[in-house]
């Protein structure tokens, strides 16, 4: 839906005027080229497969592992969770919105069985060899959300609720039930009541992110299928698919249930009415796409020298700002994610990367940069969705309304004026 640039209001003078005009015309921050489309769709697919594991394991940790003080096997998901039906996809879905299957994706199932080594070694060896889905990345995202709390207040009710007495009571009940018959832990809990409560908040964020990604995985699977079928032909098509998806699922409940000895403890009951868009999606985008934290890659940050901002709000280390060149350095979250995605790249992307830069040798970086492009497309969808929810249609006849839209877009683009933002880079195909 490429609409002509509006002539009802004068052109923008913003440094990113070109991008703003594109957004006003119904486009994305990412230029609409076949190459970009291929990269982002391929990455959505490669991202969706590990994500199908992320959400299952996150819910497993939040609901089953919970406060286990020695959670050595938290990434060894139970079969029940691995085969768990998605609530919004598959034949047995509560509300079928997406057409894919509800149980675990076949590529993922095979990978879990055999790993990259294709050897039927015991799972523990695959785990220690990092021949597995790297949940460390998912946990890093969860921690970013926990750490940057109070985002999107006051519309985000999830976060204040974690500090409410009601939550504390629910959590206390679950903690006491979990450590029943364990006097040491109960004594610790009585002495330091905040300690396990904070752990419980973390578990609530495990559940929050798990429920968020439960929705995103089938979205990305479907967008990839549609592209393969030729039904998604441009970057705005992909973005609009995401926007529609966001609205279709915006009301999905966000909750935290814990299962202790077969009994369900509702730490955050569904009845609180927390929803997917405001309590999970928007905080997620803010925490993971924009802020995150200065983890160590090849660059180390010196907080005492002022290299890390004093105010958490000013953090800009997320995927939209990240330097992808250090990807490949052991242990940093982007590398772990890139490795996960590398296992599930569609063939057309493997061939594409072979032709550029160092081919096989730096595929991790190339795909990490494609991932950055695809996340700019997701962020564009979020910006367009917010504009649709809070402001006016793009084809509104009233120039004042268009001006309000313009101001909104400009304020969003202001966040990319920082020198480390990659919005400028992704405008060019040379950045790879």
């Amino acid at each position: 839906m490429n609409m002509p640039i509006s002539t009802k209001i004068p052109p923008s003078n913003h440094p990113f005027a070109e991008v703003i005009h594109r957004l006003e015309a119904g486009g994305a921050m990412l230029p609409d080229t076949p190459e970009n489309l291929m990269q982002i769709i391929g990455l959505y697919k490669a991202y969706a497969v590990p994500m199908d594991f992320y959400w299952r394991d996150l819910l497993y940790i939040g609901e089953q592992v919970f406060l286990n003080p020695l959670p050595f096997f938290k990434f060894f998901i139970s079969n029940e969770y691995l085969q768990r039906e998605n609530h919004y996809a598959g034949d047995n879905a509560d509300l079928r919105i997406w057409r894919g299957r509800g149980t675990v994706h076949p590529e993922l199932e095979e990978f879990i069985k055999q790993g990259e080594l294709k050897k039927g070694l015991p799972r523990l060896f695959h785990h220690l060899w990092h021949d597995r889905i790297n949940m460390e990345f998912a946990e890093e995202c969860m921690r970013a959300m926990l750490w940057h709390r109070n985002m999107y207040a006051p519309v985000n009710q999830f976060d204040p609720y974690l500090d409410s007495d009601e939550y504390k009571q629910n959590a206390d009940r679950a903690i006491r039930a979990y450590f029943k018959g364990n006097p040491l832990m109960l004594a610790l809990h009585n002495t330091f009541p905040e300690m396990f409560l904070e752990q419980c908040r973390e578990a609530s964020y495990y559940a929050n992110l798990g429920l968020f990604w439960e929705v995103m995985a089938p979205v990305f699977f479907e967008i990839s299928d549609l592209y393969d079928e030729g039904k998604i032909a441009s970057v705005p098509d992909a973005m609009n698919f995401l926007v529609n998806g966001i609205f279709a699922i915006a009301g999905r409940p966000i909750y935290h249930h814990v299962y202790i000895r077969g009994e369900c403890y509702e730490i955050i009951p569904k009845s609180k009415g927390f929803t997917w868009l405001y309590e999970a999606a928007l905080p997620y985008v803010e925490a993971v796409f924009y802020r995150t934290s200065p983890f160590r890659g090849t660059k180390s940050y010196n907080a005492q020298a002022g290299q890390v901002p004093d105010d958490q709000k000013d953090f800009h280390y997320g995927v939209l700002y990240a330097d992808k060149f250090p990807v490949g350095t052991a242990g940093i979250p982007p590398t772990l994610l890139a490795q996960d995605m590398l296992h599930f790249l569609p063939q057309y992307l493997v061939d594409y990367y072979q032709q550029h830069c160092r081919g096989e040798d730096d595929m991790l970086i190339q795909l990490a940069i494609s991932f950055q492009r695809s996340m700019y497309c997701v962020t564009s969808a979020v910006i367009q969705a917010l504009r649709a929810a809070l402001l006016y249609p793009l084809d509104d006849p009233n120039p004042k309304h268009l001006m309000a839209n313009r101001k909104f877009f400009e304020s969003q683009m202001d966040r990319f004026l920082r020198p480390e933002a990659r919005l400028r880079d992704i405008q060019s195909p040379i950045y790879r």
Partner: protein
Amino acid sequence: MLSTLIWLPVFGAAVIGFLPGNFASARFRWGAIAISGFLLLWTLWLFTQFDLATSEMQMREFVAWIPTLGINYSLGLDGLSLPLIALTNLLTLLVAFSSEHLTPQAQVLKRPRLFYALLLLINAGMAGALLAQNLLLFFFFYELELIPFYLMIVIWGSAKREYAGMKFLIYTATSGVLILAAFLAIGWLTGSANFEYSAIQTAELSQRVQLILLTLVVIGFGIKIPLVPLHTWLPDAYVEASTPTAILLGGVLSKLGTYGLARFGVGLFPETWSLVTPGLSVVAAVCLMYGALAAIAQKDIKRMVAYSSIGHMGYVLLGMAALTPLSMVGSVSQMVSHGLILALLFYLVGVIEVKVGTRELDVLNGLLNAIRGLPMTSALLILAGMASAGIPGMMGFVAEFLVFQGSFTTFPIPTLLGVIGSGLTAVYFVILLNRTCFGKLDNKTAYYPRVTLSEHLPALALTALVFWLGIQPTWLVRWSESTTTALVSAAPVERQIVLSQATAITAPVLD
């Protein structure tokens, strides 16, 4: 046996030079590799035949050439020339193997036929000069080196190559004139029937004449080494020359200067030499400090390495000036060590230049990056820097330590300055490594091609050698011990007594 080292490369150069020009460049390359590889094997075989016990010339060959003028084809090998022959052949092989890798991607190595022919001629000239036992024969090979080197600089050099080549030619031709004058005077004044090295007796000359002749020799070879203040051709020549030429200039040619000094300075004028050593030790200290300080100030990493070369040749001179058995062994070891480490440094800088496209310290950054950088090259550069700075475990340490240990009793202050210079080496290598290898790779520019295994191979081989000779230094020093001891023992007796008294006096104090 020794003639093979001279005539095989000459023959190879002729064959390559007369092959049709439309042959693929790879054929010339493999031809040069085959010949230089064979020469290296031949040298290894010479090592097995070499008698460690004697300080006499071995494997002598003699053919009368122009007897009336006293010019004969007279060759011989001793502990001074053998390690340098090996160094020359190793570096020739390395250059033959890697010249194409060290040519910027956008251009191929132009005129490969001429290049490889000149390379083999250089090898022949070096071997001839190192083996010659006749003064004029030495001079013949010494001058022969000039032509291929001049051509190498002006044909394959960078922007200011004509200027650098001409400067190199003028300086080294002057060096040649001085050496020729000295040699002719030595031959005529001593009244020997020919210019045979072994036949010359300088003892009957007056000390004043000896001093004049020695001065000519020192200045002549000092230009070649080069010693400060005769060094100004070096930074231009090393930097403007292409990387393969720079490896040969620094690794091989500069050794002719120090070799000449040891052979014809220390060897022919032992008494007068010990007269001038205090002055030479000061020159050595100046070289050391000047080279290090100038290197610190550079912005171009190749120029930095070039200045480091000046500093490190200072150790060779310091060891020779001290003239103790230990320091002389150190001196010879330092020649080899300098040749290998400098070649490694130039090679790695050349790889960086080819891949990244710049040598500017202010532009380079983050090359250690595991995937998009040049991690192996950077890692080897760090090792090479450590070797050059004399970190124990690598051969740079062995050579420098021997020099310091041997020269401290004779020249404490220049030695201490040498130790400081060694510390300053660490300073400029930390600057170099910090700017080039560490830091953040620039997203705008960092799309460098990968370094292939065959491009790594020469650097890996040199690094392995640097480590091996650092851990097993006996393989480095054993060859030259007899020869250097003989050179030292030719020094005047009083001096040796003074030295032994000095150690005798200090020994109880140390206890």
